[in-house]
């Protein structure tokens, strides 16, 4: 079942939070074991990060070079996969297809009651970047409880702490980490929903236990709606995958892949219309419900104008550790789902759709920038900055241009890492020494697009792609000054706690939790690592782009049918590794 070292690494990365939970449960004996728990948390975070780094090194882009458009459509997105069957039979795909051909009319009688659920996970270029980002961001998130515990006189009275809080908080955060990593690597709808449920459940528990004074509102408006959005996405995906599996092979498989979904929309629907009118009719009746549910779920997960207000309470009222989770990674999951699920399901976008989505994204960007300019606290300004970037990335990802698509993904990672570093630096309360200060400036620079950082490459690719897209060039030209001056606003926002009055403590309001300084080596270490990642990827963007390109080649061309685009040139070699589940279900059909 396990075919390579990569799959073992993947398994270790995903399950390492569970190991951390066990370690904390063993260490915690009912008393204040702060040091031991903290060491366990730090060791776990470093373990996860190390494993993720190994995964990056082990990960290889596909070797085959598709020279034609048809070949480009067949680029596999998932390079490393593994897992086991949980429920259902293990009849191979070919056998089931043969059975279908022999007994076409008995289809309804052979419909299994339970779908074939697989605990399958895999990694493509997109999820690899997100997993590394999550591994990095979870370090300060896990350190935050210990950080807060040392608050002394500065600890807010509204959030009483007792000796079990930190243990519970660490376990909940590790549960969130497990949910995040599993969600990012999920290749099965049921597995995806289970991980998302863990993320939301642990978040709701942690928010209700340690959140701000308005945590009830945050749970009601934010977490509950996110849960409903997850449910909608999951059901839509189940319906989509299950319907197609049922229509073709008699068995319900809930496994999915991004290119699997894409193949269904691009090719199978056309073929299905000819060979199986009944199934085509079923799909036509089901498609509106699936599309609406996908759309509703995506709206819940996208902190973008005009429905961004539900995220603000979550960001404001979360305890520091959970804030890292939702502000830096959770806010990006909507775009992750857009790339991995929504775009493949919806298929090629029409020019009018691209225009309206671009208008929505860019207007949301401008709107959030305007609101950001009027904020008076660090966290509020950064929150609206994230909302603005979401709008810009949304416009870039849906504009149907490859450059914008890659730029949008780079910017998503850049926003997550930069915001985590900025929040981490702000939690220090002061510029402790030059090293974090320089890293702090690197994060500001990356958010404001300084050359040599990841943000510059992301902005460059996004703007060029948007400029070439069906979105009106004038709109993009208006956006350029907004981006440039938005960088200025970023600088203002993140320096506000430091520069309002020189030498004065940060301005805290709206129930935000002030936190005292922690030991400098952790602060320095995290800041240096994140700043290094931002700058190395800015100088050598091929590190990310070479891994993103094969996985997103077909999605980047989503603006128009593949045949109308230019010939795709992929220079990276293609190496496929994986076990028996490597080949997606639709791989063996010729277009």
């Amino acid at each position: 079942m396990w075919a390579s070292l990569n799959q073992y690494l993947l398994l270790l990365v995903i399950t390492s939070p569970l190991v951390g939970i066990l370690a904390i449960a063993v260490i915690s004996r009912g008393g204040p074991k702060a040091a031991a728990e903290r060491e366990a948390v730090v060791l776990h975070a470093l373990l996860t990060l190390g494993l993720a780094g190994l995964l990056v090194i082990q990960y290889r882009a596909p070797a085959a070079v598709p020279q034609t458009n048809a070949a480009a459509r067949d680029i596999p997105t998932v390079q490393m996969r593994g897992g086991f069957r949980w429920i259902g039979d293990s009849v191979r795909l070919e056998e089931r297809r043969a059975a279908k051909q022999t007994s076409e009319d008995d289809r309804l009688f052979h419909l299994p009651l339970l779908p074939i659920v697989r605990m399958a996970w895999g990694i493509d270029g997109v999820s690899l970047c997100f997993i590394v980002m999550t591994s990095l961001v979870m370090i300060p998130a896990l350190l935050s409880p210990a950080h807060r515990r040392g608050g002394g006189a500065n600890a807010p009275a509204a959030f009483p702490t007792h000796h079990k809080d930190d243990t519970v908080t660490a376990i909940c955060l590790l549960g969130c980490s497990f949910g995040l990593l599993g969600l990012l690597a999920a290749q099965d709808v049921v597995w995806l929903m289970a991980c998302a449920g863990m993320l939301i459940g642990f978040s709701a528990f942690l928010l209700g236990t340690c959140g701000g004074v308005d945590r009830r509102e945050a749970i009601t408006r934010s977490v509950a709606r996110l849960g409903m959005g997850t449910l909608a996405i999951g059901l839509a995906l189940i319906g989509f995958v299950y319907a197609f599996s049922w229509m073709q092979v008699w068995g319900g498989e809930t496994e999915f892949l991004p290119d699997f979904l894409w193949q269904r929309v691009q090719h199978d629907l056309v073929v299905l219309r000819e060979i199986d009118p009944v199934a085509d009719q079923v799909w036509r009746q089901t498609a509106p419900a699936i599309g609406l549910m996908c759309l509703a779920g995506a709206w819940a997960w996208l902190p973008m104008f005009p429905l961004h207000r539900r995220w603000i309470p979550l960001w404001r009222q979360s305890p520091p550790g959970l804030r890292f989770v939702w502000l830096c990674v959770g806010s990006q999951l909507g775009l992750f789902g857009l790339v991995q699920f929504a775009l493949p399901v919806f298929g090629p976008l029409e020019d009018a759709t691209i225009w309206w989505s671009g208008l929505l994204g860019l207007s949301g960007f401008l709107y959030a920038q305007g609101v950001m300019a009027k904020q008076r606290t660090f966290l509020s300004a950064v929150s609206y900055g994230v909302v603005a970037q979401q709008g810009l990335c949304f416009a870039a990802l849906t504009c149907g241009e490859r450059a914008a698509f890659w730029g949008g993904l780079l910017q998503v990672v850049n926003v997550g890492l930069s915001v985590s570093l900025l929040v981490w630096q702000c939690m220090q309360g002061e510029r402790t020494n030059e090293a974090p200060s320089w890293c702090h400036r690197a994060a500001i620079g990356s958010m404001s697009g300084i050359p040599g950082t990841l943000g510059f490459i992301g902005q460059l690719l996004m703007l060029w792609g948007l400029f070439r897209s069906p979105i009106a060039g004038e709109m993009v030209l208006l956006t350029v000054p907004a981006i440039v001056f938005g960088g200025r606003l970023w600088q203002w926002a993140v320096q506000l706690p430091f520069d309002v009055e020189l030498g004065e403590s940060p301005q805290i309001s709206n129930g935000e939790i002030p936190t005292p300084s922690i030991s400098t080596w952790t602060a320095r270490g995290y800041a240096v690592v994140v700043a290094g990642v931002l700058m190395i990827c800015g100088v050598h963007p091929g590190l990310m782009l070479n891994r993103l390109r094969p996985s997103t080649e077909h999605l980047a061309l989503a603006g128009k049918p593949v045949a109308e685009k230019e010939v795709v040139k992929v220079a990276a070699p293609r190496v496929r590794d994986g076990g028996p589940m490597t080949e997606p279900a639709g791989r063996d059909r010729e277009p």
Partner: protein
Amino acid sequence: MERIVILSLAGIVAALPAIMAAGCAVSTSHASRTLRVVDLLWGLRALLGLGLLGFWFVSTTSPPGDVGVPVFTLWEDEALPDLVFSFRLDRLTAVFLAWETFLSACAMRRFRAGALRLDDRQRTAWMYGGMLVTVVDLFVLSANLLLTLACGILISRICELMCRGSVDAEFLLHHQGAIGGQAAGGTRGQIRAHGSGTVLRWGEAALWVTLLLAWQFFGTGDYAALCDPLVQQRVASDNPAAIPVLALCLVWVTLAFARQFPFLLPTSVATHGEGDRESPLARELMDLPVDGLLRGFLVWPIGFWILFRLGPVWQHVGVARQLLGLAGAVTAVLAVAMAAVGTNRREILSYGSAAHLGLIAMLFSMGSLTAMFAGLMLIGFDAAVRLLIETMTTSRAVPPRDAPGPSSRSLIFFSAIVILLWGACGGRGFLGTELAHSATLDSVSSPAGLPAAIFKAFPWIVIFVLSGESWSLLRCGAISSRQRSGMSEDRNPLTLPASSWIVWLAGPACVGIFCLWRMDLMQSLLLPLQPVHVYPFDLSMFAIMFSSVSLAAIAVGLLYGLNPEWRNALRKPVEPLLSPLQRGAYLPDVWKLMVWQPAGYFAELCRFCEETAWPAAGRFFRRLISLWGESFLGELEHGNIRVYGVVVLLTTALMLGLLLYPEL
């Protein structure tokens, strides 16, 4: 061999500041020995820069031609035109590098001996200086728009760092109310100083747009391709508006980086050299001559550099040339007016430099490469000499804050010498032919109609501005030489006694006399310049400019030194001379009307929507829906999770029903 030597020298010149900046970043030593080593390295770099220039122009018998430098590719993909950093080294670059090495060495030397020599921030400021010089070198060496954009952004950010600023001050002051007031307690000067960074953002935005347009129309950002006539012809045939739009963007870049009108602001000009005298922090900024002078004489002139490089793209676009000329004329007039009523030396010099850049823009719009380049050289070397003088006159025994400024007479004397030197060699052949070849400015069509009338007015504007500069120089010298540079507490409006008007009128008189006297020589100078089609008018304007300034400066300087009553009369405060124009009091309002008011209204509108309109709309719709279904939707209004769950389950059941029983 020549190529290797030239590349090696250029590489060392460009890399040395970066090495020094890195050394200053990691070093914690403030020992005088370390500082001497840094001094030595800056001096060595200046020698290497001059050696590069000399080797290229003197040692080689024939021009080696442009030297290509290896290209650094960021990423390669068909979705992008060229994501590369490419470099180009030609004679123009060599001249600029030599000039920059000399100027930066002088600035660093001045800083070494200046006000912050006992300050711990010296090392940090040296590091910023090294970074800025490195990026300026890369900017000059860039051969494609992407590298130019990257360097432009970095220059802007480093300038902000050098001012220790990232607060968008004007915005805070005008639209952030409480926070502005909060910040004003002691940091108002810092905020005013940081307002200048916003101007550079306009330059960045223009560079972004220029890059996108170049990629869109030309398919590349490479300068060689952009300047290729065949490529331009093809692009013009495909899209006639492409080149004019690109030319306007290039002019926009220059206006923002060179601080031409409408980017001429008191906060963006005076603070470069001086800061706001009202705040303690601004006083510290005034102690940073390196900051002021590097920004004043390195950052501003490079705004014209991109016009040098992309001359064929914009020079035949009449609108762009007229726009540049008009902006330069307005800038020159306004800046010289503000310089004429300045109340301290650094302010006068800063506005005088801005006025001079306006003159350069006017000459550039007329296609006079020689005069323009010589003007840039003049600014740089004038600044360098002034820095050297300040260094020599600064006493190490006196604490920095009590150190006296440089001698006014020495300032005037050396400035006049530099002016004369450059006025004399400005029309030499190598400045005309070789540099024109490098800058690819070969010919300019003469304007017609209204633009021609405007251009005909330029000589009178030049005479007015030059006279104003002469008078400002006098005023600069008249301010007490014992007062510390830039620390004048004289807040009284400047007035003039009747006798000083002689100086002002001496400018046009000198111009006329010089024209009559030198006309024959100018005609003879025109002969070797014919191949580059430089107009006689341009060359004469160039000679007029420098000669008038020099004559006026010399005459006034001598008179000033011999007549102490004038000095006393000039110090005497009487009625304001140019009250409507005094210190550009109207410019912040213009700027606010152009930039901050629209931005502020937009931000306020967004904030209103976010805090008021959206919640009100939500309440309205919930109330509207509640009229439809009071009990059920009332639960929705209160966010009852069970109700949401029921809705989702019903939807799921419906979907599954459709799936399992399509007959439904």
